[in-house]
């Protein structure tokens, strides 16, 4: 187990290293960052002063290690546009995105687990067909269009829900549904396929032969096995929802890190873009790491094999 943990930790570390190099280089592909900060109309002296001030005149490798060192201690520099440190901006925005991500994942699981389980118990039943329909439609649905249609329907026509901002919990309902629906098809298909496999397996036949109740068979025995891939995929989906939150937060003017990321990209506010990209990547790497470790605890075959 210990060697598995170390191996997994090491690969997570390497992934983050490569991600950080990529993010760092992206900023420098942009041509001269000093000109980007100073603005195109600035004089040569101003550009030169900024170059020295931000350390853009140093060798790239030195800049990279300096940037990494500061990022590790939570210092992402100052925003070029707002007179604030990037970490203050992140701390203010991150909770909103995390609330959105967690509620969207919760929404997706709330839909996909029951439907997937029922569909597996009675294949080809009405519920199976309905869940299939939800999955097929969800896979082809442009998330941002779904969000716009919801705004027209629930916001403009019915006036049930606020369409922008993050003043109250009601502002989170439509973004949660839009983002959660995006994750639903994968989770539902996975639940259904996993449950069908489990229900056909020998240990379930044994459980039935022992005369266990249907509820105990389904939830104690079959579902437990399905949870392993679901935990993994949920971690991956949470990561892609953080990425997708950029589109959704922009539409609903929900001012989390996705909204901030859009705003910063438009303004070419590099330290902010770099920090948000890095934060989302760190979340993804740690969530998948946590899911793998959790699965290794649940399933001994993983940590040995």
């Amino acid at each position, binding site marked *: 187990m210990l060697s598995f943990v170390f191996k997994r930790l090491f690969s997570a570390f390497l992934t*983050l290293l490569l991600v950080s190099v990529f993010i760092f280089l*992206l900023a420098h592909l942009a041509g001269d960052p000093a000109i980007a900060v100073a603005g195109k109309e600035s004089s040569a002296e101003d550009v030169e002063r900024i170059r020295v001030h931000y350390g853009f005149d140093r060798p790239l490798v030195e800049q990279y290690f300096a940037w990494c060192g500061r990022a590790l201690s939570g210092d992402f520099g100052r925003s070029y546009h707002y007179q604030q440190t990037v970490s203050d901006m992140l701390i203010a925005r991150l909770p909103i995105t995390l609330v959105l991500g967690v509620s969207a994942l919760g929404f997706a699981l709330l839909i996909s687990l029951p439907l997937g389980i029922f569909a597996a118990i009675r294949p080809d039943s009405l519920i199976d067909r309905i869940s*299939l329909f939800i999955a097929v439609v969800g*896979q082809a649905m*442009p998330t941002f*269009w779904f969000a716009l249609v919801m705004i027209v329907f629930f916001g403009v026509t019915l006036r049930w829900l606020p369409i922008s901002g993050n003043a109250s919990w009601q502002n989170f309902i439509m973004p949660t549904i839009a983002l959660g629906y995006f994750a639903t098809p994968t989770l539902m298909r996975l639940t259904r396929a996993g449950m069908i496999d489990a229900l056909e397996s020998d240990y379930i036949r044994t459980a039935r032969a022992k005369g266990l109740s249907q509820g105990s068979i389904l939830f104690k025995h079959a579902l437990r096995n399905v949870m392993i891939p679901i935990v993994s995929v949920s971690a*991956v989906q949470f990561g892609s929802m953080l990425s*997708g939150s*950029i589109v959704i937060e922009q539409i609903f003017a929900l001012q989390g890190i996705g909204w901030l990321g859009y705003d910063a990209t438009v303004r070419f506010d590099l330290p902010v873009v770099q920090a948000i990209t890095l934060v989302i990547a760190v979340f993804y790497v740690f969530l998948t790491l946590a899911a793998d470790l959790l699965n290794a605890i649940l399933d001994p075959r993983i940590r040995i094999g």
Partner: protein
Amino acid sequence: MMRQPLVLEMIPQSSGLARRVLGNASVLMSGAVLTVILIVAIAAPLIAPHDPYVHDLSRRLLPPMLFEGHNAAHPLGTDPFGRDYLSRLIYGARISLVIGFSVMLISGFIGTTLGLLAGYFGGRIDQFIMFVINTRLALPIFLVAMSIVVVFGPSITGTILTISLFLWDRFAVVVRSATQQAVSQDYVTAARSIGCSNRYILLGEILPNLVNVVIVIGTIEMAYAILVEAALSFLGFGVQEPMPSWGLMLAQARQYLFFDSWLVYIPGAALFSLALAINLFGDGLRDLLVAGDRG
């Protein structure tokens, strides 16, 4: 391990999605819809009733058919610049199809190559490629794509390359595990024992056996690429005005949400139908090609 579910999702099931919904008619129906869209896209100059780029400010925001005050010359109405909505929709199909297809080819090439190498050679090469895949998955697609567009400036080629950079992972993951299965099979062992080169075994023996799998992933990824392009264009970081990308049409319709919501429905419905048709076609193909191989 964390990759396993994705693979699992792609492994053909004996009763495929589409077959259970519509029976075998699914491939036919989605295929017919796709053919119509393809013909419309190719023949756009012949079919489109108006020039999609000509502004006519005296005819701004005309409503579509069945709405009060519509104009028979503009069956789907006109956009905020007075351009014929149907003509823009027809030309927009070209953009979606060209970008979707190009991204599928490029990302399919990258992903299949990496997957073949990782699955065949294993060991350190496999570890390295898995590590590249993990890095790609950790990067937030929209944020990085938007930054790349800011750096290099927006263009259709740029949009295609940027999206391709992000969508090869599923090809790589599935081809890798399919190659791992193939390596242990008799025909590969036989090819090795008679001294075939690695290059020949990979390209001449294993790859032809994976063609069906790659085609099936390709259709699904093409639909996804079309949705990603639309989202990027919607955000203003993809195809630019005056090109009639469906995502861009939605972005322009956004401020008319309150009074002219049909502006939002039409391009979105087109986008959804195209993605749905491609997905159903892919699901049907999976039943026909991949499941058929196994049975």
